[in-house]
Structure formats: structure tokens, C-alpha cells
């Protein structure tokens, strides 16, 4: 049904019926929530509450800092009991507990409906500025997985021209049905959210990409679309065949529009913006109802749960509580996964909080997600190349990663790997390919960081050298000046340790002239260097995207250039004074 196709892909068992039969439920209000300060990409938010303070549901408790960051709101009414390190879900959580700073709120037993809402806005009549401010204020982040702050994404117009907004409802990973249930329950709201975003980014059309294994959601969407509602921007429902990973951003763009996102680029580079239905719903609620992002729809599934399904749960609820609500049978549980079975995280314990980006919790039995069989040698069958949705050469990358030839792996576009796991899924030798790629990627990143650090240290070292040279030159100049003021003739012992003051001979005036010329050239060069450094700094600080360390390095370079200039100036004035002195000595006689 789709007009275009993407390469590769696999068909893992769906297992979605486990959770998509029950209607959407409300999870009970938690007695205590743990809210990590980093639930998004970018810098952590900065707490603005203190322990002991009473907060109302929806109140801002931590403010975004920096360009890419998001506000955090209290998800229950209660008292802030602590701001401390607490285990959080993190990619490396399986290796041991990862702790991060969290705000912990204990609920008040009685008054749970004490909300602090923002005034409702009508998005059709408000201007873009107001809407983007509202999104920023509400702490909305992309609910699909990466948690990119939505307000930043909404400003895409500043850099790119967008013609198509894609609602990514493919939900291709097995088990997860959160988007499915979101669409079934709130189809009209999601579509209104899409209209809102289409207006913000200037898109001419909205495409909804949905896999054909979600007939109820498709029905709900087409019912809303059939109504002659005030759909200002054309909406098209595109049903795509069920295939993993059609919900990958780049894959879906290719599937729906036929445009390929360039290597290392973003969908915005080809005029497309993707949003998850959950994000659109949250954004609409933030604008229309003034509700910040304090709850989300999460799938609770897996065969170790007696009562699986989708729930609307407050952010910060403990995972234990949610699993208990779904009647977890602890004796059957072998593995707990946050996210999907292909790309999700294996959790070490259930004592972690639900965060904005957690779309699914799988409580799997041992039969369901068995431990992987032992790794065998690669037989070069090429099955991974057929499965790769990014048209990479997985086995080649595997050889490079294993042989630690990271620069070659980079040449083979390792960084275009979306880590979907399709290659590892089809591998007959059960090689955990993605694991190798991830290790290789992290090593390359570490190396890059190391190189940056070395560069930074070099600038600081150069600055120090320049400063010492300047101090030396100034000291020398001062000493010369002092000696000139005192009528006593310079003794050879004081002048012997300086480099420029040489014993007076017949050839000194010629020497001085040559030195003077040299110093003048040096001064001109230093002046040019200062100008260049100033220009570079101005350019960098204008391009707001550049990071802090780069700016700092530029500043150090500028300071170094200035030190150099001052040093040469000090030397120059000293020499000129000396020449004058000599002229006075020679001329009167």
C-alpha cells in the first residue's frame, strides 16, 4: 500500500495481542514519585524547589538550562522529600546501578486533585512564538525514545524548509502497543496535535505512517478523517506493511516519501519532520488544556504479567508499582525490559522510576526471551546485509569492530547504523553484532573526546607560554627603564643576564636596526593574529549551535594572541627607547 520501500527489514514475532486487547486504564496515583533531572537529551534541568517544600501537580520543579533541555514538573501533589541520587533507567543500567540526581516527592494523603495548570490557549488564534513558549514551558519531549525537547524541534523553521509532517505511528517493535492505544483512545486529539505542529513547522501535508497490524487504530483515525472537520492541512493516512524497523525515523521517511535522509543528516534535511503520536497528544494537551507533561501512556506486557495492558501513568511512578498493578507473577519473571525487545534496555531491578521516554515495560518469562545461544564464528553468509535497513555492510563492520580498526569502520559508515538489531536477529551464528557496533562507536567517541581534550590542553599550554614570555619581556622593559632613570652607568653584571642588552660595540646600531625591523614585523603579525582570533570568536559565538568548549578554546586562542602582542610591544618599546638613548649619546658628540 505504501508507494515506496526501504531496504532490508525483518519479521520478528509480533506479540502485540498480549497488551492491545485491554482498553486503556488509569494507573493508581503513586504515593511517591522519583523524577530524574535528565529525562531528555541535553543538559539536566536545574531544581528550583527545596526539600520540604509543598508542590502542586503540574508545578515546575526544575528549569531547563541551556539550549537543549526541558522543564520538569511535579507529577503529584505533595512535599519534596529529597533531591538526591537515585537509580535511574539508563543504557548501562544492566552493568550495575546508574544513579542520577532526582527530585523525590511524597504524596499528600488527601488532596490529590490540586493541579496547577497553565491558562488554556487556542492554537488556531495564538502566534507561533506563544505556542513554542508554551511547549518549552510544559517540558514536552519526544516520547518515541530519544527524548529530544519538542520546543527545539518546533523551531526547525529557522534552519530548514519543511513540507511534510509525518506522524510516526508505525510502532514496529514487537510487544509495544502504546501508540496503538493512544490512537484508539485519542485519535481526534492526536490529529489536532498534528495540525498544530504542521502549522508550526510550515508543512503542507501531514502523513500518518501506520503498520497494517493495527486495524482498530486505523479505523479510529479514518473515522476522524472522514468527518468534515476543520482540517486546514491535508492529512493522508498511509498504511504500511508490518516489517521491522519501518518505525525507524529514516526508514519511515523513505517508506512514505521516497526521500532518503543523507548520511549523518536529519529528516529535516529532506524537508520532513517526524513526531510520535504520544508527543502530539502531550503537546496538544499542553496548549489546549495547559497541562504540562506529567503522565504518559505506557505498555505493560510480557507473559509474567497476569493482567497486561496499557495504562496512563504519572511520570516518576516506580516500575514495581506499575508491574504490581498489572499483577506481576514474580516467580515467572526472568528478565525486565524497558522499551522493546529489540532496542530497549534490560533493567537490573524494578526500583526505577518511569521516565518521559519509557514507552513499554516487558516482564518476560525465560521461555519468552531466552538467553542468546553462544556466539559462533562468522560464516560470511551475507544474511545481515540483506536485513540491514540502512544498506550498510554489517559483516564488514563486524570485522572492523572486532579487529579494532575503528577508522575503517567509520569509513564504512558505522555511524549510520541505527542499532535496530535486525542483523543480529538474522545472524545464523548468533553474533551479537549491535553490541560490537556500539562498543566501536563508544570507542570512537571516546577517542574524539580525547582529541578535543588534547587540543584544549594545547591551547592552554600555548597561552601559558605566551603569558610567561610577556611577563618576562615586561619585566625586562621595566628594568631597562629603571636603569635609564638612575644616572649610574649599567654595570656589566646586571646586563649580562638579559638577552637583548649586549655589550656596546660599534656594530650595535646596525644590530638594533635589524632587531627593530624584526620586532616590528613580529608586532604586525601579532596584531593580525589578534584580529583573526577576534574574528573567529565572533563567528563562533554567532553560530549559536557551537558548544562551550569550542568557544572556550577560541577565547584562549584570542588571549594567547593578545599576550603575544603585548610581549612584542614591550620588547619593541624597550628597543626603541634604547635606540633613542643611543642616538642621544652619539648625536651630541
Amino acid at each position, binding site marked *: 500500500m505504501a508507494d515506496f520501500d526501504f531496504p532490508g527489514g525483518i519479521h520478528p514475532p509480533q506479540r502485540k495481542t498480549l497488551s492491545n486487547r485491554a482498553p486503556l486504564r488509569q494507573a493508581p496515583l503513586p504515593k511517591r514519585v522519583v523524577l530524574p533531572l535528565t529525562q531528555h537529551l541535553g543538559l539536566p534541568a536545574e531544581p528550583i524547589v527545596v526539600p520540604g517544600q509543598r508542590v502542586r501537580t503540574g508545578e515546575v520543579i526544575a528549569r531547563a538550562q541551556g539550549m537543549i533541555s526541558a522543564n520538569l514538573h511535579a507529577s503529584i501533589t505533595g512535599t519534596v522529600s529529597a533531591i538526591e541520587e537515585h537509580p535511574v533507567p539508563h*543504557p548501562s543500567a544492566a552493568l550495575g546501578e546508574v544513579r542520577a540526581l532526582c527530585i523525590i516527592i511524597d504524596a499528600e494523603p488527601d488532596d490529590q486533585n490540586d493541579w496547577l495548570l497553565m491558562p488554556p490557549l487556542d492554537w488556531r488564534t495564538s502566534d507561533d512564538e506563544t505556542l513554542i513558549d508554551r511547549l518549552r514551558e510544559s517540558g514536552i519531549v519526544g516520547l518515541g525514545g530519544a527524548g529530544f525537547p519538542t520546543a527545539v524541534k518546533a523551531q526547525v523553521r529557522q534552519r530548514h524548509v519543511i513540507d511534510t509532517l509525518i506522524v510516526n505511528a508505525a510502532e514496529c517493535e514487537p510487544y509495544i502497543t502504546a501508540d496503538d492505544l493512544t490512537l484508539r483512545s485519542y485519535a481526534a486529539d492526536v490529529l489536532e496535535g498534528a495540525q498544530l505542529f504542521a502549522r508550526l513547522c510550515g508543512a503542507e501535508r501531514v502523513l500518518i505512517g501506520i503498520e497494517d497490524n493495527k486495524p482498530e487504530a486505523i479505523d479510529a483515525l479514518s473515522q476522524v478523517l472522514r468527518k468534515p472537520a476543520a482540517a486546514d492541512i491535508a492529512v493522508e493516512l498511509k498504511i504500511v506493511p508490518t516489517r521491522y524497523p519501518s518505525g525507524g525515523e529514516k526508514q519511515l521517511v523513505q517508506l512514505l516519501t521516497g526521500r532518503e535522509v543523507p548520511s549523518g543528516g536529519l529528516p529535516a534535511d529532506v524537508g520532513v519532520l517526524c513526531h510520535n503520536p504520544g508527543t502530539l497528544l502531550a503537546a496538544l494537551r499542553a496548549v489546549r488544556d495547559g497541562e504540562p507533561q506529567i503522565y504518559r501512556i505506557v505498555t505493560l506486557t510480557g507473559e509474567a504479567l497476569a493482567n497486561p495492558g496499557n495504562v496512563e501513568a504519572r511520570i516518576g511512578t516506580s516500575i514495581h508499582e506499575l508491574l504490581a498493578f498489572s499483577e506481576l507473577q514474580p516467580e515467572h519473571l526472568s528478565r525486565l525490559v524497558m522499551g522493546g*525487545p529489540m532496542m530497549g534496555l534490560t533493567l537490573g531491578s524494578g526500583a526505577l522510576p518511569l521516565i518521559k521516554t519509557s514507552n513499554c515495560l516487558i516482564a518476560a518469562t525465560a521461555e519468552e526471551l531466552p538467553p542468546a545461544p553462544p556466539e559462533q564464528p562468522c560464516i560470511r553468509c551475507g544474511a545481515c546485509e540483506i536485513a540491514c535497513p540502512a544498506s550498510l555492510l554489517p559483516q564488514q563492520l563486524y570485522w572492523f569492530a572486532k579487529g579494532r580498526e575503528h577508522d575503517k569502520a567509520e569509513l564504512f559508515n558505522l555511524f549510520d547504523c541505527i542499532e535496530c538489531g535486525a542483523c543480529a536477529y538474522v545472524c545464523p551464528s548468533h553474533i551479537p553484532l549491535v553490541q560490537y557496533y556500539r562498543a566501536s562507536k563508544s570507542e570512537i567517541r571516546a577517542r574524539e573526546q580525547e582529541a578535543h*581534550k588534547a587540543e584544549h590542553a594545547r591551547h592552554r599550554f600555548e597561552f601559558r607560554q605566551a603569558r610567561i614570555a610577556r611577563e618576562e619581556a615586561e619585566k625586562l622593559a621595566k628594568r631597562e627603564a629603571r636603569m635609564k632613570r638612575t644616572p649610574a652607568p649599567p654595570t656589566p653584571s646586571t646586563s649580562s643576564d638579559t638577552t637583548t642588552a649586549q655589550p656596546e660595540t660599534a656594530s650595535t646600531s646596525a644590530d638594533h636596526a635589524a632587531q627593530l625591523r624584526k620586532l616590528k614585523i613580529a608586532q604586525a603579525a601579532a596584531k593580525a593574529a589578534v584580529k583573526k582570533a577576534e574574528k573567529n570568536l565572533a563567528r563562533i559565538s554567532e553560530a549559536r549551535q557551537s558548544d562551550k568548549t569550542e568557544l572556550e578554546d577560541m577565547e584562549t586562542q584570542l588571549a594567547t594572541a593578545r599576550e603575544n602582542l603585548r610581549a612584542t610591544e614591550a620588547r619593541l618599546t624597550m628597543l626603541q627607547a634604547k635606540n633613542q638613548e643611543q642616538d642621544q649619546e652619539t648625536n651630541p658628540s
Partner: protein
Amino acid sequence: MLELLTDNDIVAAIAALLGMAAVFGALLGFAGQYFKVEGDPVVEQIDALLPQTQCGQCGYPGCKPYAEAISQGDEINKCPPGGETTIAALADLLGREAKPLDGEAEDVPKIAYIREDECIGCTKCIQACPVDAILGAAKHMHTVIIDECTGCDLCVEPCPVDCIDMLPRPEYQVSAALIASDRQPGRLTGEATVHG
């Protein structure tokens, strides 16, 4: 003159070659003067490969002087912080044979920490630091800006009360990520971190 040239092939050929030699010689001489490169570009390239800890373990007062020495023909295996990777990169750049490291390589990158209650505020470490990473004033406590410290060791020696410790750099304790489709921790996880 013209007749002599047209009649005598050999003379014409020699004259043409001489003329061309003169023209190109002048051109090259001009280019050599006009496009003269200040400094040695190889030194810059070598300097870029060195780890910039400015530790002086190579016997030179910083990475740039060592880079200059290498370009003059010094050995490429005198940089312990860079280790084998730096030697391999230098051998690659200069077309020389890679040699085993002269000295002992560090196992993990370290940085300096001052035990602050023992510091007497003598400023000796501040003067020794090649990257201005130590903060403090005379008779006041000093401290290391850990983000700027390169772990060069140079501040340890001058300290009169031995209150500086070299400890592993914090970010190196973080390890590789694991996702659900990954095998359980064990085999591969160490590999991503031991390096670097």
C-alpha cells in the same frame, strides 16, 4: 641570429632549453620567496598526534618541543601518556619503524587531586602546572580544576608537603551501554573502556 637558429637545429634546441630553464627557474625562485612557509609543517602534524599532557616525560619541556625534536630525528617512542597508539600514529606519519615504548605506559588516565586540608599554600605546584589548571594564592589553599588537568605529574614533585595525589580520571569509570537484545554483561563490556 634568427638565421643561425633556423639553420642549426642543435643550437636552436639548446637555446630553447636554456630559455625555458631561465623562465622556470625565475618562476620557482619567485614562488619559493613568495609562498615561503614559516615554521615546519611536519612539526604541527606531529604535535597534533601527541597527547598534549605537557608532562615532559620525554625529556623536553612540553609536547611542541618534543614534536620539534622528532622532526629533527629524535626517537618516536618517548611519550608514555600517548602509549602504543601514539607511537603507531607517529610511525605511520613519518614512515619510521614503530618501536616499543621507552618507559612505562599508564594503565588508566589519571589526574591530580590536592588534599586540601594539608595544603600550605606555597604556590609551587601552580608554577609547575603547564596548563594553568591549579587555582590558589600564596598562603591560601590550592585546588585542581579537574576538567583542565592533563595528568602530567609535574605538580607532584615540587609539593613540599606531598599533598597531591594522582587518581584515575572520573569519566573512565563509566562503561559501555547495553540494550535488551544484547547478551548479558561480561565479555564485551570491558573492551569498550580499557582503551583510550
